[in-house]
């Protein structure tokens, strides 16, 4: 069976500046990913690591500089506008900011109906019925349809966005930090909603996040990004419990541990900001902040190697499990 999403060696560069000072930023630098049907892959990293660019390229909302994207076994890169339109029925996007992603001049009904209108699904009455069904699915009251988005809270707005994304019954949802703009109490509700929907509709999620508590809860697998590259990838349990890349280790130690595990972990605090993608460090991009960095790290870029089955790390000196940070 084909993967819901497969990304091969994706590169995205942006030009910056103009004239003589024109240069190029490589926001995504050779990322490969796969999301199986019904699975959640969490893409984790600090802001500026290229997570969102990867997600936008995956759904052809940005044009990749090179690399390939496959959705449901169909190659997305190089699709005609018509093919792209039909692709939209299979893959949808949920945005980070529920205040910016809903048109303030449209009613909720118009917003949720828009995908049905665009793809001419059924007749008008049928579309309205579907809108009501979708609003019920995401837990909004029936009278919500007639109101406009600014009458809703952030969490409710995100539910509207989810209803819109589900309207065409896609198999893949790309969720770009869908809860990071919400209150903590509301976050859990939306996450639970997304998990329920996944069970009911066999959805695949590419779930972008920087909050590891959320990732632990929802993800089957995790990929960690740093400065446009994937530095570690593996099953969620394993990455959370036994991270191998020093950067992942640092991320995990910064996140509040799950209560009840009783595992004492030393807190590793990263110093400094991530380096600028305009002028990335040579070798391993993380060496400027890594406590294990050696000369090799400054010159040779470590490849992503599968150390254990299903667990790949891009590091010359991966953290040994059990011993170092037990």
């Amino acid at each position, binding site marked *: 069976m084909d993967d819901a999403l497969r990304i091969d060696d994706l590169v995205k560069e942006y030009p910056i500046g103009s004239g003589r000072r024109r240069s190029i930023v490589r926001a995504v630098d050779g990322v490969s990913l796969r999301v199986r049907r019904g699975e959640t892959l969490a893409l984790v990293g600090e802001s500026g690591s290229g997570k969102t660019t990867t997600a936008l390229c995956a759904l052809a*909302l940005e044009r990749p500089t090179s690399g390939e994207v496959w959705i449901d076994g169909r190659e997305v890169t190089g699709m005609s506008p018509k093919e792209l339109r039909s692709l*939209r029925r299979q893959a949808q996007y949920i*945005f980070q*900011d529920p205040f*910016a992603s809903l048109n303030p*001049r449209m009613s909720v009904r118009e917003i949720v109906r*828009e995908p049905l209108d*665009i793809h001419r699904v059924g007749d008008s009455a049928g579309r309205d019925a579907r809108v009501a069904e979708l609003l019920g699915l995401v837990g909004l009251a029936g009278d919500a349809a007639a109101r406009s988005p600014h009458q809703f809270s952030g969490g409710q707005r995100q539910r509207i966005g989810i209803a819109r994304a589900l309207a065409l019954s896609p198999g893949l949802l790309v969720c770009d930090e869908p809860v990071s703009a919400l209150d903590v109490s509301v976050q859990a509700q939306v996450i639970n909603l997304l998990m329920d929907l996944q069970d009911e509709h066999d959805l695949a999620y590419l779930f972008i996040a920087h909050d590891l508590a959320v990732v632990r809860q929802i993800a089957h697998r995790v990929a960690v990004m740093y400065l446009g590259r994937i530095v570690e990838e593996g099953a969620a349990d394993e990455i959370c419990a036994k991270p191998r890349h020093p950067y992942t280790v640092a991320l995990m130690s910064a996140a509040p541990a799950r209560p009840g595990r009783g595992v004492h972990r030393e807190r590793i605090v990263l110093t400094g900001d991530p380096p600028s993608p305009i002028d990335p460090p040579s070798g391993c991009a993380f060496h400027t902040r890594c406590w294990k960095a050696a000369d090799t790290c400054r010159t040779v870029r470590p490849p992503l190697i599968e150390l254990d089955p299903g667990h790949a790390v891009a590091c010359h000196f991966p953290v040994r499990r059990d011993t170092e940070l037990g």
Partner: protein
Amino acid sequence: MSSIESAGLSAGRVPATLAPIEIARRFSHRRIALVSAALLVLIVVLAFSSDLWLTRDYADQDPLVRNQPPLGDAGLLGTDQLGRDLLARLMFGIRLSVAAAAFGVLVQLAVGVPLGLLAGYRGGWIDSVAMRSVDVMLAVPGLLIALLIGMNIKEQVASGSGAVADVLRSIDRLTAGLTPVFVVLVVFFWVSMARIVRGETRVVMARDFVRAARGLGAGPFRIVVHHVLRNCIAPITVSVALLIPVTMLTEAAMSLVGVGVDPPRPSLGVMIYEGAQQINSFPYQTLVPSITFAAVVLLVGFVGDGLRAALDPTTEQGR
């Protein structure tokens, strides 16, 4: 003309977060604007129905009642040096003002808005060409060029030969002699609207909901009409309201100078000019159209200010 336009430009930046009902409510809370709007409606209705309630036509001359003062036996506003009823002339003059204003609005909506949308949506060379021409248009001596164009069109209508002149002549018959004014409005009045809508379009295009619409498979038409245009309604409304006085002013100035509407049709500009010839002996003859024109322009200005305040969520309410 340009300083009023520039005031409009700075007013164009209105955050688009108010619902239409909310805007109507806020507008109705602004008493001055509401009263002004009501008065304007009244004036326009009176002007366009004047044939029904006036006994004399604007061109009827009566040598027996020349230069009669207002509130006398010869009509409410008196008569001019040819014994024509000033009230009838005033009403016709207002019709011409309204016609110029309506056409100016049409130009803004039918030329300025689409051009601004196109430039803002497509970017690239279309944008560069459109915005360079806007820059040039804002830097030319507007009134002088307007008068030149007016002169040209008038002569074309009067004595031109060829297809263009024929077309202009048939337009002139339809527009009661307003052709030179209309041509000038077409040349000038798309400019500031195109600039405002273009800027607004670029702001809206960068917002997530446009990206979301593209992610849903929306084509350019849907994005422009349903997403961009809907969010430009507020600045468009404000710009239209702010430019209406300028269109009326253009008509009056052109007619006053003799390159607009021809006598005996009484533009308010023509009435002001003719009255000023007798300013020492019969000052009311220029005072009546002057005050009327100023009042109408002022009322439109108040409505525009009210709209701007109602559409801008950052202003406080109830004044």
